[in-house]
């Protein structure tokens, strides 16, 4: 009964069918139903005329078996069911179901050896290749299951199984099935006796090599060519019996012109070399060397091929080295293999500056990494020659080229015998390079320090070599390493050196700092600090202190080094502040600290660490900034300079962002005490009462430097989380106070700081509905005298307009309705002849990313805020532009370009049809900034959605050509000309040739004049652009 129901349901309602099977299984488990009865119940369907019914009937049995607990069927039931199913294997139409059922049966506890043999014997009689892939898949899964659980039984079957299996899997083409075939075959090759079938097995497997498979789109099995390649490679490498058949074929295939095939061949060779064992490899190593060396020395293909070819040579050497624990005697295969290599390569390396010497050096080095014994052999047979070339050769190019190869050898030695940063396993044979250490150190030191500074590459090579020698564990003596550090210090501090030379010296010093930090602290830091002048008087005219600071910063990324540097720099700062100086030097010193802290992105600063930095740095700096301003210190007031305070503020941000909430909170209250409330503040180390009485940075008539210190408030507000309540009770009152100060800013950075304070308060702390309601009259008041003006430009109104933009910016980040309302007002103001220009620039601020008012500094930013603002503004701008008078039209275009510059191209893309006419008009303006921004937008459009530009190609190309012409009051600055040329250069690749071919002649002719541009950078861009167009329409093969 259930059988019939199952057969009826299995196609139209698989879930129901599964339920029926599961229920039957349960009844069998609870002994309400006997399995034999169930088998009998399907019996009647097995003689059905309809082949699918027969298959479904077996499918029912399979589904029931699959749902059964493996312990349910007894020792007696299993053979019966097995026999029954094996008989069914003869019914070809039911093969898929039968195989499924057998796979399920195979999982039963009492399915034993005899059953496995019974099934295997029946299975090999099936003519599998004629079945469809999904059926073959089930049969192969059965094979896989048998191999997994009853391998010994199958081994007993001997040749019957192996030959039978060969018939089953031969000619398989389906990738999913091949994945099974390869993994089954690998087991056969490794564990079964295939001595009678070597060639048969090889043929079955090798016929798939090389895999040229491209997965179909949406392949549900997600099998890649690489998956197949790796499995196939596993089979080929599985048994050394294949070596005689395989290597000659692989070598032949190396002649292929397809590099993916070559790559596959080389990778397969490596895999085989590593697994076949030394005995087998000793037979084939010389033919492999002959074949692979051709690839390296003559063909010299791309980097990947070179890498894999070298890998093969190394793998062979690794294989031949196995078991050898002492220096290889001449008649061992390893010695013969290496000797052949050395003879050939050494010959080439005698003329090291020639092309083939480079691969020869790579070969020698890579085989030396194979093992300590290979390393010993290579060193012993090459270094005497290398050293004599070095002592004879006078030509620097020759010495340099050889030293390049030696450097590779040092790297090899580092891999075998370990470096300071990476220890190696103990090696059976000592490092033969040891005996050359003094000589090498001498030669390399001489090359670096004793040759003319003009010899860039020679000295770079020498320096890298010294770096590698230093890095090798237990190689150079500590005194020698110390000397290397001194040499590198000298190079890094020698301003006449080329930059790349100094950079390389620093790079190596930095590497040394990771394993010999103490040497850097003891030798390098004092040397560098000594170069920092104590006052401006002692400064050289080129201000080299910047480079010195840069070098110090680059060496101080590790915490202990940073702390030493911090102490030394702060002491230096104290010395400098004794005398008057310009803000640049103290600023650079603080920037150095900031640079290192910012560079710590990879290993975040812990809160404990941040707290320590806070205590050492911030109160000290704030005190030194403030006290001189109220006459409580004789030191220079220069730390209160706007350029320096700015950096102090940023230091506070990076440190405060990493401290815990409690400290953050107390710093907020301290900074309010210092700047807003004029109360004693613990940001000061001493004199806090005097400061409270005399230091009033928010007073309208405060001194400029005193006012500037308010900048710190902006930075502290930026680094505070929103949850930290501000100590000012009535925020509106506070905002109003700041706005009043902002109406008369003292300096540009003072102005920016006040605007930011306004933006930060509005965005982060005025989030209640009532806050917004109170905000509206404030903005209205600020706008009032602008909109009612009929006189000329008024400075205070200008400042108020800036405040409006920042308030609106802060609101728009949260997409507040009030913000959206005022943005429309601002667009209307673009038509104002007095303030329109200023408003147009303001849109850059409105849409731009601010460094402090942003998500990283805990601002509220709604998802897609910019996108919403953009789609609101665009139609208004387009309409405004259309109806504006000629005089104010450019304002709309400038505003547009300021908006476009700040939204992503995916947002712009759908609006392009509406935008393009405006963009083209922007190119006719004579404003360089607008032009540059517009060309940038066009360029991005061209690269990302060229189709949108298709119908405008003619006008765009014409305007770009015009924009690439020299500036004659057209606003075509060199930067505009270059970006126009770069955009033009992208046309041939972005649009179909036939679309732009009509313009080729014109472009080439016009660009001929640009080739004569007065600026070289423009000429270079013109040459590249013209080159692209020159070859437009040519066949590329």
């Amino acid at each position, binding site marked *: 009964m259930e059988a019939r129901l199952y057969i009826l349901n299995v196609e139209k309602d698989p879930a129901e069918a599964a339920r029926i099977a599961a229920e039957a299984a349960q009844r069998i488990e609870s002994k309400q139903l006997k399995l034999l009865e169930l088998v009998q119940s399907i019996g009647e369907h097995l003689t059905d005329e309809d082949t699918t019914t027969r298959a479904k009937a077996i499918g029912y049995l399979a589904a029931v078996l699959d749902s059964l607990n493996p312990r349910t069927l007894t020792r007696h039931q299993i053979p019966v069911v097995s026999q029954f199913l094996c008989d069914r294997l003869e019914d070809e139409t039911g093969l898929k179901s039968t195989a499924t059922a057998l796979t399920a049966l195979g999982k039963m506890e009492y399915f034993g050896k005899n059953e496995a043999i019974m099934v295997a014997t029946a299975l090999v009689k099936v003519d599998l290749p004629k079945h469809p892939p999904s059926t073959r898949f089930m049969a192969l899964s059965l094979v896989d299951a048998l191999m997994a659980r009853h391998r010994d039984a199958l081994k007993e079957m001997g040749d019957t199984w192996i030959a039978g299996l060969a018939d089953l899997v031969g000619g398989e083409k389906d990738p999913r099935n091949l994945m099974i075939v390869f993994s089954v075959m690998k087991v056969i090759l490794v564990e079964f006796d295939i001595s009678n079938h070597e060639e048969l097995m090889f043929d079955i497997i090798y016929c798939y090599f090389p895999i040229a498979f491209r997965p179909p789109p949406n392949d549900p099995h997600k099998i890649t060519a690489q998956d197949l390649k790796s499995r196939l490679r596993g089979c080929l490498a599985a048994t050394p019996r294949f070596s005689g058949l395989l290597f000659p074929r692989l070598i032949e295939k190396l002649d292929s012109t397809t590099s993916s095939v070559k790559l596959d061949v080389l990778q397969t060779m490596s895999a085989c070399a590593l697994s076949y064992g030394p005995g087998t490899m000793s037979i084939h190593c010389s033919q492999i060397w002959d074949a692979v060396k051709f690839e390296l020395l003559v063909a010299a293909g791309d980097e990947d091929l070179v890498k894999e070819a070298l890998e093969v040579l190394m793998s062979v050497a690794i294989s031949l080295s196995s078991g050898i624990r002492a220096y290889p005697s001449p008649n061992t295969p390893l010695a013969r293999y290496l000797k052949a290599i050395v003879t050939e390569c050494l010959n080439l390396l005698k003329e090291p500056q020639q092309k083939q010497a480079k691969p020869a050096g790579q070969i020698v080095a890579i085989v030396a990494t194979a093992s300590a014994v290979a390393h010993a052999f290579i060193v012993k047979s090459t270094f005497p020659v290398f050293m004599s070339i070095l002592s004879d050769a006078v030509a620097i190019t020759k010495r340099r080229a050889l030293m390049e190869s030696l450097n590779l050898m040092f790297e090899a030695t580092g891999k075998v015998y370990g470096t300071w940063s990476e220890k190696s396993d103990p090696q059976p044979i000592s490092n033969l390079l040891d005996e050359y250490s003094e000589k090498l150190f001498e030669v390399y030191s001489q090359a670096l320090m004793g040759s003319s500074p003009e010899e860039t590459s020679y000295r770079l090579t020498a320096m890298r070599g010294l770096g590698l020698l230093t890095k090798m564990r237990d190689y150079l003596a500590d005194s020698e390493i110390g000397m290397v550090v001194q040499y590198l210090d000298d190079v890094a501090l020698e301003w006449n050196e080329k930059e790349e030379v100094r950079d390389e010296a620093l790079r190596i010093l930095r590497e040394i700092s990771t394993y010999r930090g103490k040497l850097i602290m003891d030798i390098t830091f004092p040397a560098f600090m000594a170069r920092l002048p104590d006052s401006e008087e002692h400064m050289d005219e080129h201000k080299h202190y910047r480079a010195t600071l*840069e070098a110090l910063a680059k060496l101080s990324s590790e915490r202990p080094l940073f702390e030493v540097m911090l102490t030394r720099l702060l002491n230096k700062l104290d010395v400098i502040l004794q005398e008057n100086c310009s803000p640049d030097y103290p600023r650079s010193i603080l*920037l150095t600290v900031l640079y290192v802290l910012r560079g710590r992105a990879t290993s975040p600063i812990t809160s404990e660490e941040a707290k320590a930095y806070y205590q050492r740095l911030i109160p000290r700096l704030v005190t030194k900034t403030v006290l001189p301003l109220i006459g409580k210190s004789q030191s220079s007031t220069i730390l209160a300079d706007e350029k320096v305070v700015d950096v102090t503020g940023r230091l506070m941000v990076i440190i405060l962002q990493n401290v815990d909430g409690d400290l953050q909170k107390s710093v907020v209250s301290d900074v309010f005490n210092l700047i807003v409330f004029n109360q004693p503040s613990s940001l000061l180390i001493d004199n806090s009462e005097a400061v409270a009485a005399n230091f009033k940075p928010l007073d309208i008539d405060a001194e400029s430097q005193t006012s500037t210190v308010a900048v710190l408030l902006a930075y502290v507000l930026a680094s505070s989380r929103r949850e930290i309540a501000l100590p000012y009770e009535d925020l509106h009152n506070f905002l109003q106070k700041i706005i009043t100060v902002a109406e008369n800013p003292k300096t540009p950075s003072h102005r920016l700081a006040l605007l930011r304070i306004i933006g930060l308060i509005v965005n982060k702390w005025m989030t209640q509905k009532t806050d917004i309601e109170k905000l509206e009259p404030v903005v209205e008041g600020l706008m009032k005298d602008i909109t009612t003006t009929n006189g000329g430009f008024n400075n205070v109104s200008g400042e108020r307009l800036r405040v409006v933009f920042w308030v609106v910016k802060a609101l728009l980040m949260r997409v507040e309705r009030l913000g959206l309302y005022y943005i429309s007002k601002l667009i209307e103001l673009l038509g104002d002849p007095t303030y329109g220009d200023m408003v147009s620039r303001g849109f850059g601020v409105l849409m731009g990313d601010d460094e402090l008012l942003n998500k990283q500094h805990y601002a509220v930013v709604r998802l897609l805020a910019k996108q919403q603002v953009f789609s609101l503004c665009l139609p208004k701008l387009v309409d405004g532009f259309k109806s504006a008078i000629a005089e104010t039209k450019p304002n709309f275009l400038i505003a547009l370009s300021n908006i476009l510059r700040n939204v992503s191209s995916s947002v712009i893309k759908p609006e392009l049809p509406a935008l393009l006419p405006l963009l083209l008009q922007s190119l006719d303006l004579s404003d360089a900034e607008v032009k540059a921004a517009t060309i940038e937008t066009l360029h991005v459009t061209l690269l990302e959605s060229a189709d949108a530009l298709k119908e405008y190609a003619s006008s765009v190309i014409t305007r770009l050509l015009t924009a690439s012409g020299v500036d004659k009051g057209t606003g075509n600055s060199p930067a505009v000309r270059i970006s126009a040329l770069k955009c033009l250069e992208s046309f041939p690749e972005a649009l179909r040739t036939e679309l732009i071919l009509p313009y080729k002649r014109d472009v080439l002719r016009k660009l001929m004049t640009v080739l004569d541009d007065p600026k070289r950078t423009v000429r270079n861009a013109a040459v590249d652009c013209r080159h692209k167009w020159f070859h437009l329409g040519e066949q590329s093969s």
Partner: protein
Amino acid sequence: MDGKTANANPTILDRSDLPTRQPALTPESRLSPIESTVPTYPLDPFTTSPSPLSSTSSDDATPDPIDAQEIYDLVANITDPEHPISLGELAVVNLSDITVHDAPHSPFSHVQLEFTPTVTHCHLATVIGLALVVRLRESLPARFRVDVRCKEGTHSTAEQLNKQLGDKERVVSAVENASLREALRKMMLSV
């Protein structure tokens, strides 16, 4: 080894030894990474629009003349027809063998470039010479006369070769040749 190769194992210069334009940067003008940790704000974005371009673009007041280094940079990256190596690295073109006479407002400017084949019997010297002529013609203003020749004593058939390269019509017809054109295209891929 391939019998057709003219010179399988030529001498190669290291890239860092090739002549480059030394940027006229003193440590003062060089923007150190430390100084650029922090943006230098423009005075006021509301009156002048902020621009990342203004710092890099130099003005037109001081023109840069076309000099030998510029010519060298135009041709040094052309790939040799038989090695994947540039003419600069192979020392086929050398800065010292380039002379430029640039008279911006007269039609009589000229460039002379002498190249050095890697071996005296190099049968590819013609192709190299041709590539140099084509590249310079394509890249220099029309007022320049381009004179590419084989350096004296560096090639067995130098005289004949120079005649070919100097003959405008022969150059034009050579470039019309499809296989030659393809060879040139490949050499120029790296410029």
